């Protein structure tokens, strides 16, 4: 059953913006990613699912240059960015929206947005993007002069995404945008993510624990476990997959069958 996981390695199609090959990352002596490979295509929303500690966040950190990989390649538009400094990666067009709404708490909302555009010098373009961002997140315009730390959780998440957009990224790495938000806010934020992808043409790589929401918005999905990619398929097909249904969506058959089973064996092991 490893064909699916090996699929990215076979061919890199012309519209692939980001390709990761055999990536290994360590926290000191601890392996966090053990040879992960994946592709992100232009204009797609690609999601990486996995439980706590699967290595999803590490994967994003390694791509965005906050961590250095031990081995492997990260190619972005034909350019090798493995081990590049974080500010180079941002300048190249990849922006990482970290998990847990890491805003600058004592700066105002407007200042937070301007920090998102730190790598840019085109004042007119920045102002334009500020308006664009305000059109997606009107609340941020209302709260422009308020300290970001005083916003609610959902508003901080919106600010974190908006701040990332201010860098005018071509590829956005979103780490758990649903974390700690109410279901209605999750729905709202994922709606905006979809719209940003369609209207602004931002390619998205979305890391999520909330598999149902993520697969519904994504075009393609990867499943990560213990630092490896164990499944890769179209999001729709992943939604139908028995393994994903049981282990990530919590849909179980046992009640229908009426027989007692302990745990289904994962087919990828």
């Amino acid at each position, binding site marked *: 059953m490893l064909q699916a996981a090996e699929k990215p390695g076979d061919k890199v199609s012309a519209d692939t913006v980001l390709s990761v090959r055999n990536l290994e990352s360590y926290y000191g002596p601890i392996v966090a990613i053990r040879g992960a490979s994946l592709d992100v295509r232009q204009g797609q929303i690609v999601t990486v699912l996995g439980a706590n500690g699967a290595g999803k966040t590490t994967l994003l950190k390694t791509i965005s240059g906050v961590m250095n990989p031990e081995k492997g390649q990260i190619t972005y538009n034909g350019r090798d960015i493995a081990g590049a*400094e*974080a500010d180079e990666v*941002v300048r190249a067009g990849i922006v990482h929206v970290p998990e847990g709404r890491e*805003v600058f708490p004592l700066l105002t909302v407007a200042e937070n947005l301007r920090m998102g555009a730190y790598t840019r010098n085109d004042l007119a373009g920045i102002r334009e993007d500020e308006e664009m961002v305000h059109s997606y997140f009107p609340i941020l315009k209302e709260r422009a002069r308020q300290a970001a730390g005083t916003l609610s*959780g959902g508003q*901080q998440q919106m600010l974190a995404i908006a701040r990332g957009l201010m860098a005018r990224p071509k590829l956005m790495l979103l780490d758990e945008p649903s974390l700690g938000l109410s279901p209605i806010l999750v729905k709202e934020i994922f709606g905006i993510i979809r719209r940003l992808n369609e209207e602004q043409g931002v390619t998205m790589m979305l890391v999520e624990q909330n598999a149902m929401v993520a697969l519904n918005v994504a075009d393609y999905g990867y499943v990560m476990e213990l630092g490896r990619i164990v499944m890769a398929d179209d999001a729709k097909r992943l939604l139908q997959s028995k393994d994903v249904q049981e282990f990530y969506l919590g849909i179980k058959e046992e009640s229908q069958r009426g027989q007692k089973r302990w745990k289904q064996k994962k087919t990828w092991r």
Partner: protein
Amino acid sequence: MDVLQLVVSGLANGCIYGLIALGFVLIYKATEQVNFAQGDFMMLGAFVCLGFTNAEFLGWPFWISVPLAILIMGAFGYFLENLVLRQMFGQPQVAVVILTIALGFVLRFVAGVIWGHEPVSLESPLAGKELRFGGLVLGWDEVTVILVTVVLTLLLYFYFSRTRLGVAMQAASQNQLAAYYMGIPVKRLHSFIWALAGMVAAVAGILFASKGSIEPSIGLLGIKAFAAAVIGGFGSLPGALLGGLIVGLIEPFSARYIAAGYSQVMPYLLLFLILVFRPHGILAQVHSKKV
């Protein structure tokens, strides 16, 4: 009138404590390092300026020596961070503390070798001139200290709230990881902050040496300034200045109204009380992250 004169000389001293405290807080906020050599930075800045301008050394004009000394101290701070402190990345905080304490010893020794251990004064054009104000007699040197501190404070305020680099420094100190994610070159900003702390220390040193005499061990004044920073709220720039002013004012008043020896004890007594009753300092800048 008496009281007013005490206030002015207390404020003048307080401004100098405040500027050194500012250096502590600048570095602490941005890098979470504590530079225990900040007082020695001030001493060094004063001696560099004095070495240029005093007749017994180079005898250059005062108005050239001052900016030159400030620039040299800025470069000193920049390269110190760039070449030495960056190597300490990932080491426990106490390593930086020990390093900067040791650096202080080295700087005192070097200053002693170059400029000697005798107390000397900066030959400033303001020395000894008086400003008469009704019955009030104020030294121009003290008034200058206060004016320069006010101007420097305004400049720093403008820098941190209005310029891109200044706001980015605030951002990096509030959330370093997020600053990395936004492409802010955090490491370079750390070098700039050390440069800024060096320049502020040079200003403090020049002001100090123009209204009194200095010798290499004057850098130990940094301990009092550290106390001032804690009183004001370690981590708050206005707090550092306020703490400095409070310590500066307490000294002459306790010497005058209690007994001469008390001026050395009262700042630390206040520090003790603050730590017990308001451990984050007077102007604490505390925020808790929403989860």
